[in-house]
């Protein structure tokens, strides 16, 4: 009898939804894109620029989330990988005159190759030794631009100017360039997140988590530990490279000073603040590290403080937030959001359940 009863459509859809990861991720991506579009057209030029900055920061932070959260490696050098992507974009746009999409793709691929080479070294290193090596990378690689033999190509300390890529004319003559930049960055962010989310729930993602939990057990289970680690490093570097390419596109600049050590540390902070291993967390984290300095500067400006005090308010606020969030939310903001969600669910359910029992 039960076979004959047609199942309600909602149940069929729910099952599909639960079974097909790709469908789930694509639906979230479509909703995300629509939300991003509505947000971008309601903002003014300055806030659209911030939206673009948040988007490329989130791309790099998402790459770092996959590296640290899934395969358990640490990198303090993702700022340097962003520099590789930015310089690739600047050089390709200047010398090859390719379309922007192709340039970004090529920059991503170049950085992935660089990341694979670094990953080969990184796969031998653990914990603080990997931290030290990537820290030296963050400081050492951007300084290459200052080397006198390469100064002609890489532009020395001034860096390279990137030719602006204006929005297509079909959008209208007065279309704000910042909104166009935000759209490009948002599209890249959504594509990156869908790809990374699929990767995380694939076989390779499972291997990565196994490697993170126990390398020996992973090896015994037939997972090639070093290969998985190198692959993860390359993927993570690719995300950083794309972020760097977008950085060059938005800021029309690639210079050593744009990729300081503090950028690498801010990316790590974004990934950890949001909650390691959570791609949604990478977005919150990026919002915080991008907007907090501007917000606190605005607040400080309105408070009529002396110049040296007001100039340093953003740094102090940033430090306090980093310390506070880490002490209060052990698993990052995403952990806090999950906890709040569960609490809300329980508080709503309790009166309902009581009503049912009467």
């Amino acid at each position, binding site marked *: 009898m039960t076979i004959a009863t047609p199942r309600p459509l909602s149940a069929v859809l729910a099952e599909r939804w639960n079974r097909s990861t790709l469908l789930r991720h694509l639906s979230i991506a479509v909703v995300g894109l629509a939300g991003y579009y509505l947000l971008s057209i309601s903002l003014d030029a300055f806030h659209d620029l911030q939206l673009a900055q948040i988007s490329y920061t989130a791309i790099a932070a998402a790459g770092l989330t996959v590296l*640290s959260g899934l395969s358990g490696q*640490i990198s303090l050098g993702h700022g340097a990988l962003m520099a590789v992507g930015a310089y690739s974009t600047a050089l390709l746009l200047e010398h090859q005159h390719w379309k922007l999409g192709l340039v970004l793709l090529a920059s991503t691929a170049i950085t992935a190759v660089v990341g694979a080479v670094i990953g080969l*070294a990184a796969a*031998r*290193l*653990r*914990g*603080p*030794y990997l*931290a*030290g*090596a990537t*820290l*030296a*990378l963050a*400081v*050492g*690689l951007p*300084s*290459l631009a*200052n*080397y*006198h033999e390469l100064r002609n190509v890489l532009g020395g300390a001034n860096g390279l100017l990137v030719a602006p890529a204006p929005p297509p004319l079909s959008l209208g003559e007065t279309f704000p360039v910042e909104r166009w930049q935000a759209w490009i960055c948002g599209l890249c962010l959504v594509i990156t997140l869908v790809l990374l989310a699929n990767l995380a729930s694939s076989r390779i993602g499972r291997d990565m988590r196994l490697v993170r939990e126990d*390398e*020996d*057990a992973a090896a*015994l289970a037939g997972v090639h530990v070093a290969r998985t680690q190198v692959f993860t490093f390359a993927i993570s570097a690719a995300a950083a490279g794309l972020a760097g390419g977008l950085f060059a596109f938005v800021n029309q600049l690639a210079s050593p000073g744009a990729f300081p*050590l*503090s950028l690498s*540390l801010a990316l*790590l*902070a974004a990934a*950890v*603040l949001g909650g*390691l291993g959570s791609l949604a967390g990478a977005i919150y984290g990026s919002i915080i590290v991008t907007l907090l300095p501007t917000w606190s500067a605005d607040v400080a400006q309105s408070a009529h403080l002396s110049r*040296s*005090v007001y*100039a*340093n*308010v*953003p*740094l*102090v*606020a*940033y*430090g*306090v*937030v*980093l*310390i506070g969030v*880490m*002490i209060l939310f*052990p698993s990052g903001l995403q952990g806090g959001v999950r906890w709040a969600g569960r609490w809300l669910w329980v508080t709503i359910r309790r009166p309902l359940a009581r009503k049912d029992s009467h």
Partner: protein
Amino acid sequence: MERFIDLTLAGVTSGAIYAAVALALVLIWRATRIVNFAQGGMLMITTFIGYTVIQHGGSYWLALAVAIVSGLVLGAVVERVLIRPVENRSPLSAVVVTFGVLVLLQGLAGMIFGGTPRSYPPAFSIIGFGNANHRLLFAPNDLWVVLVVVGVMAVLALVFRRTSIGLRMRAAAFAPEVARLLGVRVGRMLTLGWALAAGVGALAGVLVAPTTFVSPTAFDATLVYGFTAAVIGGLDSPPGAVVGGASLGLALSYVSGYLGSDLVPLGALVVLMVVLMVRPSGLFGAPAGRRV
């Protein structure tokens, strides 16, 4: 040949500074398994405190003493208040907290002292040994730097190996649970470890200040090279910090002298990678045993 000697001597001096910072990081790593990025900010603040003492007419020596004492206090306070809550969590939480402390201290220093670099007086003459025809790239002040760092290393080695408090600190770091059962106040030992490390860091800050000047971000490079030296030596080993500091100081001095100062950060990366490719746990670090 003269140039080589000069570069070697300059390398020994900067190597001594790197070794001191590396030692501060190693002490904290051994005690709490945390890489302390805040060390750069902590030694910056204590150097500013020393600078303030000199500004108000204090002598170099009074400033040095005040800086070291404030370093001891600052280290203990940071460990007790900010690090203790995250001590047993994932190492990344602690890394982000120490980074937060670094940023916070830099911001506070900027608020109080402003961003302009200030000059810090050296203890002794900075005119190199030798006569008017040829002066070595090694001055009485450099000799003082090297001697102080070597002296501090010797004293710390004695404390750790020959005194009861040193034994208790090593026990607390090596096996906290067992040490606690044997009556060692493990928490207190960890705080003491941080205090000692920050004291050594404060000393390094005052020693390096005449060359780097004093500003909120002046010691970033010192921290990076100190950490590089600690990793080269092996984070578990105080002698490793000394050897790592000395070899990094020499290597960077040669890179700067023969290839150009632009390449120094890249040189540090190359030296570090070469060492780590041969010995993934540093020169003196024990290879990590793995148990299935």
